[in-house]
């Protein structure tokens, strides 16, 4: 006789845990997507929402998405790692994106980038030890007319020169201190 395995129906529990790993808005969004005949085609859109909220795609969140959208976890990982826009690690408070597109490159983006690395003491893809800044390179922000361009959070700074870097960083350090003070009150 074949050995009998007891059915392990933990579906509800997995579902509950998946919902907990995300936010109610994201769960609701996944549920609307699930109604589409091509539900899995919304995977990238869902990952965008997760990253917008959490700042990156954590393992727990990716598994939750896989579960709720009913796609294999391997596929979620495959997609998350294929596209440059998705990040698998948390980042600093201010994300500095240096445009490395053609227009910026010929207008001296490299020197701005060098100066940023120097001032922050980090390389591209890294975060400062105080967790304040992450440095990333990006491909054309679509504002080539203002080259070279960097973007801090979603603000764009055009016509950058290396000499403007220290003051710009200082401004953000002060901003962070101010916000901390306000939150502390």
């Amino acid at each position: 006789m074949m050995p009998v395995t007891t059915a392990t129906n933990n579906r509800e529990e997995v579902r509950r845990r998946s919902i907990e790993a995300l936010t109610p808005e994201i769960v609701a969004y996944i549920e609307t997507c699930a109604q589409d005949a091509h539900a899995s085609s919304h995977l990238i859109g869902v990952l965008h929402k997760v990253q917008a909220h959490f700042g990156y795609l954590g393992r727990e969140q990716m598994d939750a998405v896989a579960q709720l959208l009913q796609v294999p976890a391997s596929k979620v990982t495959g997609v998350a790692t294929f596209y440059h826009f998705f990040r698998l690690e948390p980042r600093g408070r201010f994300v500095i994106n240096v445009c490395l597109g053609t227009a910026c490159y010929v207008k001296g983006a490299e020197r701005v980038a060098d100066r940023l690395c120097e001032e922050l003491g980090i390389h591209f893809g890294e975060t400062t030890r105080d967790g304040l800044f992450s440095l990333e390179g990006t491909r054309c922000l679509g504002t080539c007319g203002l080259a070279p361009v960097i973007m801090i959070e979603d603000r764009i700074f055009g016509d950058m020169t290396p000499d403007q870097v220290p003051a710009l960083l200082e401004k953000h350090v002060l901003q962070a201190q101010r916000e901390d003070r306000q939150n502390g009150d």
Partner: protein
Amino acid sequence: MGKDISSRYAALCETAQAACDTLGLSSKIIIQVGSATCENAAGATEVWKEFERNIRTSGREDIQLHHVGCTGRCSREPIVGVLMPDKMPVLYQKVTRDIAHEIFTRHIQGGEVVAGAALEKSAAPMQRQVILCEARHCGNTSCSDLGDWFREEMEKAGVDEDAVALTQAGGMGFCTMRKNTGTNCILVRPENVIYFIKDRADVERIAREHLAGGRIVDSLRCKEESISVRFFDRYGDVAFFNQQNRIALRNAGIVDPESIHEYIRYHGFSALAQALAKGDPDWVIDEITKSKLRGRGGGGYPTGLKWKAGRENTETTRYLICNADEGDPGAFMDRSMLESDPFSVIEGMLIGGYAIGASRGFFYVRAEYPLAIRRIENALAACRENGLLGDNILGSGFSMDLEIRLGAGAFVCGEETALIHSIEGERGQPRIRPPYPTDSGLWGKPTVINNVETFANVPAILVYGSDWFRTMGLENSGGTKVFALAGKVNHTGLVEVPMGTSLRQVVYNIGGGVPKKKTLKAVQTGGPAGGVIPEEFLDTPIDFDTLGKLGSIMGSGGMIVLDEDDCMVDVAKFFMAFCQDESCGKCTPCREGTKRMLEILERITEGKGEPADLEKLERLADLVKKSSLCGLGRAAPNPVLSTLKYFRHEYEAHVLEKKCPAHKCKALVHYEIIPEKCVGCTMCARNCPVGCIAGARKENHVIDQSRCIKCGRCFEVCRFDAVARQ
């Protein structure tokens, strides 16, 4: 049915007009402020707030603040326009809070133009402007003759020379209405009247009655509205703009991109209504085919043929996709179009959907364009509310819905089969064609993919006719092309010119040439898939075929000007690094070939290249070109091949002499302080980021070569030319 559609459309127009009237768009003083990613980056939001505050405190109710998209004059943003009834519109550049305040108090309240801030110093104290159309296919009288006639007749009529400006424009597109050839079109501002001129007698009458007497000459006047009259009315005095021909960008910088009413008020959706009322998709395809519209995404495939293939498929579930992935790093036409005039693209897509018989369409947009995404979302919602999207559009029985799908930063997803995989929620890897998407695309169904700009042209073709569109371009390629002009050029921004315009005209007449009196070395077109075009070929007419023959491609419209300081080996390396990074890894020639080519280029720029490397590079480039799976790999060698073709001597200098002629490659540059010239001002030492320059005040300074990082700071800051660069 046709009647029902027309009456529904007429009702929409009425509502739109009423909404615009309530805003006071034709009766009030309008302050228009640009609002697009680039405008906002330059500070347009602060400027808007400043005007808001000023209007509030002044208590005036006859002033309306108005958002427009971006006109594409990037380096002068934020741009503000002041439109007063019966006056020439005045445009201001690089407006800050302070300038905004000044504009408000001096110009709007005091009636005096703030000349110092005028866009390209355009606002001379003229009261009137006569713009002569210089398009190639225009009337018989050459423009210079016409100009002379005007000058002479104005003098005879006693018109004050300083009060009327005579301008020759690149092409105003007024020929849309010029049924009989042999006439010339002119535009007179601020009345915004188009005249048809047959002979000198007409010129005499216009000079006497209109320019001197202030009375419009009704019998010579054109009653219809041309496609670019609004653009010229607002921007006609600015050289950067009046040399252009705005078709795809017809509404950019004119309408509020978030208002469907403004779009409809300027005849938006009339092409769709017309097509639906005719009830014949084949007519649409026929018109598009006759117009000789070719895809603006880079491939240049005839749009009419593509649509026909989609329509003729026996499978009736069909899809339509707008490719707004804009991956070329250095191009921003599509972003600007979507941010400044999303409705035109939507209308083009609906017409396309109707023509091929699709009921579901997709916008595939880069996630890096958040504002464009918001504007499309807003536009789609407005269309839905007004019965222009969804079930039974305008009561025609045709139903179509559009949705947005986001990219996630992969260049290869601009390639159509990769894009389809991405919409399906997969990794964006391409597959072998055929089958082409028009046979088997999204979820295996026939799918037509077109670029943003391709769609934006469609409504204009239906409204003004395929003949008009075709005559604007070249024999095999109709219409205009939008370029994103950037790099070492004075006026950066969006340039729309007819196919066949020369590169020289774009770079010099519109772009204002190279800054700082440097010499132009080459123009790079087509991004990572394109090549460089050296100065001696600048007179080549721009088109898909001509640029292809030169070893570059037209591409999607990126145009980067390179000057003497740019090293061509470095440029090739830059693009190769890009392609290598973006290669999806599926096929070996592209994955491995780009990597090996990059290694060779790196070696050369580091001064470790050998003579054999050049042949190796050429062989490898040829191989990758021939054997890659998709367009990315097949085009990746282009930058290398074209730089090798035209600038082989630069490669040779790197390899044989270990020198970088442009002094760009760090490993091959050497900085030294010339003792005879150094006065010991300490400027270089103070600016050296690594502190490797030693020397006391008023004494010779010396660079410690072992620590020098070759950043070039000392060379730049020295005011005595005492730093030598080799």
